[in-house]
């Protein structure tokens, strides 16, 4: 079993991540990957990650601070934030991971129905949380994007594409995962 540290992250912009979201992510990760999820205490997003002009948080800076806060253990780290994430080149990202590495971060900001002008919907939010957690954790285990429509590893660049995915790995990605673990 591989230890995976799961931590809620507090950001200057964006709401706090609910217990229900953290719990569903823990369950799906233990279901799909050979990991034991260790709930880490909430951590603050580093101030230098916040871009006050964009009102967003830099994913690469967050990953760096995450690694600095946990230099050796656990083997994998996943932070979940309510703040909106970006990388300098792109207007936003749903999450970011070190491909085959230790640290990943996901954002719930654009996964809430409210962000797109809809009424709150907890079940929809939980389903999206599971999918995005699988996707970024998949990158941590060396998986790259998949062409299969429903696979969690498919690239989504907007919420419509995102909702075509399901919180599962397709058989192809599952096979590659097994091979990567060997």
């Amino acid at each position, binding site marked *: 079993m591989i230890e995976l540290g799961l931590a809620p992250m507090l950001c200057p912009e964006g709401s706090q991540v609910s217990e229900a979201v953290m719990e569903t992510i823990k369950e799906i990760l233990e279901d799909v990957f050979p990991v034991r999820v260790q709930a880490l205490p909430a951590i603050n997003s580093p101030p230098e990650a916040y871009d006050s002009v*964009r009102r967003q948080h*830099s*994913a*690469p*800076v967050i990953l760096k601070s995450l690694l600095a806060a946990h230099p050796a253990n656990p083997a994998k780290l996943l932070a979940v934030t309510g703040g909106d994430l*970006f*990388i*300098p*080149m*792109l*207007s*936003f*990202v749903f999450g*970011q*991971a*070190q*491909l085959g590495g230790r640290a990943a971060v996901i954002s719930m900001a654009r996964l809430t129905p409210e962000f797109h002008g809809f009424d709150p919907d907890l079940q929809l939010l939980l389903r999206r949380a599971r999918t995005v957690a699988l996707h970024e954790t998949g*990158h941590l285990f060396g998986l*790259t*994007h998949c062409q299969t429509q429903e696979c969690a590893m498919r*690239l989504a*660049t*907007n919420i419509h594409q995102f909702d075509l995915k399901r919180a599962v790995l397709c058989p192809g990605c599952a096979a590659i995962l097994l091979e990567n673990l060997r």
Partner: protein
Amino acid sequence: MKANWQILVVDDEEVMRESMAAWLREDGYNVDVAASGREAIELARKTDYAIHFIDLKMPGGIDGIETLMEIRRMRPDAAIIIITAYATVDTAIVAMKEGAQEYIVKPCNPEEISLLVSRIIKVKNLQRENRILRQKLTRQYQFHDIISKSPRMREILDLAGEVASLRSTVLIRGESGTGKELIARAIHFSGDRGAKPFVAVSCAALAESLLESELFGYEKGSFTGAAERKKGKFELANGGTIFLDEIGDIPPKLQADLLRVLQEKSFYRIGGNEEVRVDVRVVAATHKDLKQAVEDGAFREDLYYRLNVIEIRIPPLRERKEDIPLLAAHFVDRLSHETGKDVRQISDPAMRILMDYDWPGNVRELENAIERAIVSSRAPVLTEDDFSFLGEGAASHTFRVPDNMTIEAMEKLMIEAALRRTGGNVKEAAASLGIDRSTLYEKLKRFGIER
């Protein structure tokens, strides 16, 4: 498929280039990064990237536009996407004029980049596929089946390459089956006429009057049956190459006509009085000793010198036996594929038979022998049994004149063997026996030999 493509990200800001590279790697691409224009140019020199993302504003001498220009100089087909935070219409126009494929303003919508990248990769995939198919196609005509490690053959191929773009007439000499037409095609397709027609005419296959109309065409009504005007091979080959095979067999009147075409680059269609001008390169081939034919008065001396500007002599297979294993392996490879049989190799004893055999029909005979062996074989390895039909030829090494044999019986055996070897081709059989075709016909009739 994506891992086959490499992408270069050039930006002086570390977090910018690294996060972009990481994002593209998640998509399955191989990504390199460069922190300056100079570094990018060095990397692009070594690697042919599918896409170059280049930041417009970079300190340290070489900016994005200069980097773009330098990479385009090295790789004219390079796909370049210019990135900038300070977009102005002016710089966009400069970038596009210098050949940038796209121009994006950071921060960019992930959807936009994703579509842009997949669009370029799709084109690259098609280009690559196209190039591979094209190579396959031209190889078929170019050096297809010209396989050799013999230094003499290498010299011939080098010479063919050198003369490819000249206009000079080429005379190819070689026994039948040595690949004269393949060399002619190689000369045509590797030269600057490669895209123009290559027209092959076998001068031995046709009677005199037919050959004449075949070469020069005819006007409507010029003879019985000439219902339409017809272009001759010389006209069809205009701009390209005409290959005149077995040139030694053309009758005297046509020799004179041919000489005029070579000298004047023009001719008249049969029954026509309009001069037709053509730009055609002539490559001729013969298995005969034309010089001897000139001395015997059977071939015009002036035509011989016109044709023999560049002479290429292809050695018979028995003079380059080192090529037999190579050619045999190639034919096994190709013919097993074409016949749909799973034959992969030739056993050592079988190869010894092939090496010992004299191959009077040269490479073509070897190809036919391999095909025959593959068709009748039931195992993935060809054995000596599969080549037992070559026994008659191989036995000639230990040839003994049988007792009490008449010259006539001997003659009959020789003619039958020659016909078997040439697959019933009387012309080739006559050539290999050293007698005229008409003499051979006479003997066939006399001995009652069926072709």
